[in-house]
């Protein structure tokens, strides 16, 4: 096995690894997106209630009565946290994408070099 071939194999492995990581993080993003949507909906519903409304939170198997303003604050905090996570994940996705593209270009270059002197196959 030539040196070039070994290098190509290494690059391919790195590329696949980057793809796998990217896939994992994209999945995490979808999950966060879903949570963000759900919390948004809850926030909208809470906003429609008047101050005297009874709000409960399911904690374990029990419904615990909550203060409406407190509930709103909690959901708001949760939303902020999720938005922050989304931003973090987005920048991670960008980095991984760039990495994958760089690997791909490297692979193409190596392939061209491997095919070049032999005259292509």
């Amino acid at each position, binding site marked *: 096995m030539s040196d070039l071939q070994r290098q190509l194999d290494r690059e391919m492995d790195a590329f696949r690894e980057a*793809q796998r990581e*990217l*896939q994992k993080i994209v999945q995490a993003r979808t999950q966060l997106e879903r949570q963000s949507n*759900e*919390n948004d*909906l*809850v926030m909208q*519903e*809470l906003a429609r*209630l008047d101050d005297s*409304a*009874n*709000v*409960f*939170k*399911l*904690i374990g198997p029990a*419904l615990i009565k*909550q203060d409406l303003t407190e*509930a709103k604050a909690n*959901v708001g905090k*949760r939303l902020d946290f999720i938005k922050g996570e989304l931003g973090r994940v987005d920048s991670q996705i960008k980095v991984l994408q760039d990495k*994958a*593209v760089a690997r*791909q270009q490297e692979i193409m270059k190596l392939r061209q070099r491997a095919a070049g002197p032999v005259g292509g196959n």
Partner: protein
Amino acid sequence: MMSASPSGGAAGDHVPVTALSAQELAGVRDNVESACNELAEKSMHIQRLMAVFSTSNRTVQALADSQPGQPLMIPLTESLYVPAKLADSERVLLNIGTGYFVQVGTDAASDYCRRRSAKLEDLLKNINQDLAEKRNGLAQIEEVLNAKIIASRRQEQQQQQQQQQRKAVKAG
């Protein structure tokens, strides 16, 4: 996820499908096909959710129509029911997500079901439209792909015939 294959789908293709090789085309077809399946699954899921909201709405309305003290049988398990009396026919607990429940009147609960249903319906419309477009694109891709396959087979046959003719000429 390979950047070589357009993930945007065939409906708004920037590259004409006829410009791709049969192999590339097959790849694109697989992509579009899986996108179609995903959309179809989403559409089904939304329809199921809408059915849940419409059942809830009907239940709430039935509750609003009944009087306190109305005898009921409450299911404890699938086969064990206990007799009960309706204490309150005006207020219900609404599960609004992420573990939050709010106590609202039956009118508000009914309104909630209708609102959620309406939103889902909009979403469903969009998805079904998307799905129709994607399926259309898929049909086009398949048409072109089939044409290419037939064309390449014909070429092979012609080459074989020419070879045989050449052999015949040499032999003769």
